[in-house]
């Protein structure tokens, strides 16, 4: 159990450092064990440093920076031990347009090893989807589904 945990941790650590730098297009981040001698109980430390910034407490990061760092962690766990499918409900809400596009690009790359179902309001993420469904309540209170072509998105949202 302890060996397995340590082995997984070290693999995720390597992925996280790489994916963070990809998503932020720079900067650096590390995962560290708080107490290497106690593998059964040790907590995990996250140090993240967006490009051009000093290393700071996670709590001082902005809403969008935290969401992108959390996404980097999820993606690094996926790389080490992929679940067959992922459901992401408006994960992109705190991101600005530039970060939405980076997120969508990454999703595209990872969709070769895992399946994604993404709920979103952002055009950048919609553009990455292979198929789009619109959920509506033409009859109030009752959900219906429309299958959309990716290029119909513009007129749908309003």
């Amino acid at each position, binding site marked *: 159990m302890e060996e397995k945990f340590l082995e997984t941790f070290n693999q995720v650590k390597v992925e996280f450092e790489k994916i963070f730098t990809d998503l932020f297009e720079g900067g650096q981040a590390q995962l560290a064990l708080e107490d290497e001698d106690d593998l059964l109980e040790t907590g995990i430390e996250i140090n993240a440093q967006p490009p051009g910034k000093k290393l700071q407490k996670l709590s001082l990061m902005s809403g969008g920076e935290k969401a992108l760092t959390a996404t980097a962690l999820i993606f690094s766990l996926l790389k080490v031990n992929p679940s067959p499918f992922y459901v992401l409900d408006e994960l992109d809400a705190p991101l600005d347009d530039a970060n939405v596009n980076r997120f969508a690009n990454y999703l595209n790359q990872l*969709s070769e090893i895992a*399946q994604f*179902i993404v*709920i979103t309001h952002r055009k950048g993420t919609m553009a*990455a989807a292979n198929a789009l469904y619109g959920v509506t*309540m033409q009859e*109030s*209170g009752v959900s219906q589904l429309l299958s959309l072509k990716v290029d119909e998105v513009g007129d*749908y949202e309003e």
Partner: protein
Amino acid sequence: MFLKSITIKGFKSFADRVKVDFEPAITGIIGPNGSGKSNISDAIRWVLGEQSAKTLRGGKMEDVIFAGSGKRRALGLAEVTLTLDNRDGALPIDYKEVIIGRRVTRSGESDYLINNNTCRLKDIKELFMDTGIGKDAYSIIGQGKVEAILSENSVDRRELFEEAA
């Protein structure tokens, strides 16, 4: 293995039967506020065995059954089926396609199904045991919950790594 489709009837705002076909890569779900997008994510959690009404944003499990609308009466049954492509044999069952089902009535009777045979929740859990799928797995990230993944407390974080191990 991947999700082929989900069929939802009588679950939350889905009074009429709705089927969503999923792509093997990326399926996008869009729509206005309150239209029922997150209810689809709740339906996936539920059919996979979610036991907590609070995680499904309700008070008691009965809250997942269509409660009526301006023009429609409440229904008495919620039913969700999830169809999985198992051509790669990732699920330890001898079918190329596996259908998981869950039903609940207002009187509280609830049952699970695998390929149309009723079974227990335990059977569903065993089926998914080594796949990383299950209601607690970090593979379903709820609305507004992305930051919670980083969690304030460093010891809580280890849960993510233990699940992935």
